[in-house]
């Protein structure tokens, strides 16, 4: 999931809107503060992406006949979907060992927050966030490389 600039602005917007809709749907949630709000947003974005990835994977299995006409975009989609799912699994594993580092990844990657903001949300120093990020990302990268190789 290296940074690629692909022309999917519309879809990005759609995703963000979807996240937004789910966010405001949490009617009963009383927003304790900004931090709480950001944390929930990141979780929601993660859930949405995973849902889409799952649906894609499911469609692939179900629609075998259609795969004949799959073009490049579909290949990208399917690769990206499975990466998303593996990242999600790895993050879950990470959370069992080190919940804070897992949350740093969630806030940064899914929530789009910068280190300073994450430090605010988690009430730790910015240096700690940087260190957590480095470690978590390296470990996730390793997990994904290994699972891809298998």
């Amino acid at each position, binding site marked *: 999931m290296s*940074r690629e600039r692909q022309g999917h602005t519309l879809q990005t917007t759609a995703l963000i809107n979807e996240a937004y809709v789910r966010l405001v749907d949490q009617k009963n949630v009383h927003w304790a503060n900004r931090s709480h709000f950001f944390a929930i947003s990141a979780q929601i974005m993660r859930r949405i992406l995973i849902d889409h990835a799952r649906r894609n994977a499911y469609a692939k299995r179900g629609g075998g006949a259609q795969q004949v006409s799959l073009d490049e975009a579909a290949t990208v989609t399917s690769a990206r979907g499975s990466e998303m799912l593996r990242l999600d699994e790895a993050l879950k594993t990470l959370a069992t060992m080190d919940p804070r580092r897992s949350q740093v990844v969630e806030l940064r990657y899914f929530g789009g927050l910068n280190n300073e903001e994450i430090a605010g949300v988690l009430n730790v120093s910015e240096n700690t966030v940087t260190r957590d990020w480095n470690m978590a990302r390296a470990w996730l990268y390793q997990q994904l490389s290994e699972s891809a190789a298998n």
Partner: protein
Amino acid sequence: MTPERWQQISRIFKSAISLDGAARAAYLANQCGTDESLRSEVEKLLSSHRQASAEDFIGGRAADDGAVLLVTPEELKPRLEKGQKLGSYLILDQLGAGGMGEVYLAKDSRLERTVALKVLSPDISEDQRRMQRFRQEAKVASSLNQPNILTIFESGEIDGLTFLATEFIDGETLRSYLNRERLKTAETIDIAIQVLTALEAAHEARIVHRDIKPENVMIRHRDRVVKVLDFGLAKVTEKRTATQHDLDAEAVTEFKTTPGVLMGTINYMSPEQARAATVDERTDIWSVGVMLYEMVTGLMPFGGPTSSHTLVQILDKELPAFPKVVDAPAELQRIVRKALAKSPDERYQTAKDFAIDLKSLRRQLDVKRSVDDTDQEPDDKRAGKEPSKTRVLVFALVAMAIVTAAFFGWSVWRAARARSSSVVIPAPGPVTPQPERRLTYSITVQEFRNGKYEPPYTMAAEVSFEPKDRVRLNVGSPQTGYLYILNEGPRDGSAVPEYSIMFPSASANNGSPLLAAEQHILIPAEPHWFQFDTQAGVERLWLIFSEDAVAELESVRRFASKETQGVIADMTQNKLIQDFLTTHSATKPETEKGETLTTLTMPGKLLLYPVRLEHH
């Protein structure tokens, strides 16, 4: 891996990462001792760290990376090709593809007109809820008839494809224009005024757009006329009251968007939308405010890397002042600030009020400009766009000299079996036996195309006119009665429009409102014409035909003099006229359109009808 092992690894990793070469090796040897597996774990992680950094692994936003998940190969492939036919539509080109489907340029072979054909993607046409939205869009937008709102011609389903045919605008979205160019203050204001004019019409019909943003605003290349698109998210406001009567009400009342579910682009969302609270017309005011801010400064007033950042800003952040480098009048900043008040109650309450402030600022800027550069070369096109002309609906006679001549030159039109022009119509004899009023009118048009006027033709329909087109009205009745024709001017900020009396006039019909049966009058009289200028708008000509003289109108006949040119320069009188028209236009006459003639029939002794002349 146990949490303890993980902690151990991460502690070593954290320090090792800041060391390199021999120092790192020495540190690892020291920390791991004989635990080879620990050392190998840490080294693997360090190597992964290097690669992850180099590849910028998860370095972007998940929303960008995952966007591709929403694209399916079917969506990427256009379903119609050039030359293909969908019903009576011949596909000429693909214009684009978006979230809801594809848009094609097509020719409607029935009417020989070019249209934009929006074809819905299959997963939408199979989705009940979204289909509902699509139908609403078609319904809502087609119930609005205003030059700044995209016209919808038809919607339906052919060969399993759901489509919407709309007016084709050869232009670009405000978004693409903003991406390309930095707008001048005057142009910014002009665009905002036109968007507000569209919204004014929508709001009058109790329709809130809810998704005003530069992507939904198009600017036509030819004349820079602005069109607002996509009333798909619109919904009728809840506070609709029983006293409001509008013809389109039925078309739009029965639908609602799902409560609590927010649709729209976050950056232009109002605080009340952001809270998923009830929204009304004032949410559109906010969105225009955001757009105006963006046009002036090139920046978003509220926005962050994620939707939650943006949301927090919309709700809490004070509006940032225009950057110092932006050369915008202080008044514009005040206007934007008022539009972007967090509380709807502190905002402009109507699109009209908002537009009034912009128009008056525009006038000030023009005055200033003409003082600044006095020897500016005359430029016809520019003059045509002059906003100092506050009349949005400009309906000018060919030239001022002709205005006067025409106005006082109106005379009784003599049909083939002409009467003498000096005939004084006798007092109303026994009036027609029918308990109803009947009036006919037709419009003679001379189109200005390719630099010259086409031969005139006569029609019944009220079509859209182009700049420089000329029209003349022919009004008559099989009945005898009193005829009055009023031109309703723009309101320009006041609640009461200014009317001009066009018939009777000092010279036409010998100054009498009394029309004989089968007598026809031309407005203006030959050889004069009304000519449209370049400013888009709708001109309303009220036809009032009564069995008896109408007291409210008799009292303003004195304004039909050479000095006043028919303009009723008396607000009390204008108010009386407005009340009169409002009271009596509650019931609409039955209209029957023939090939070249429209027949209006209304029960009772009085008939009222506004002829709408719309022009781009």
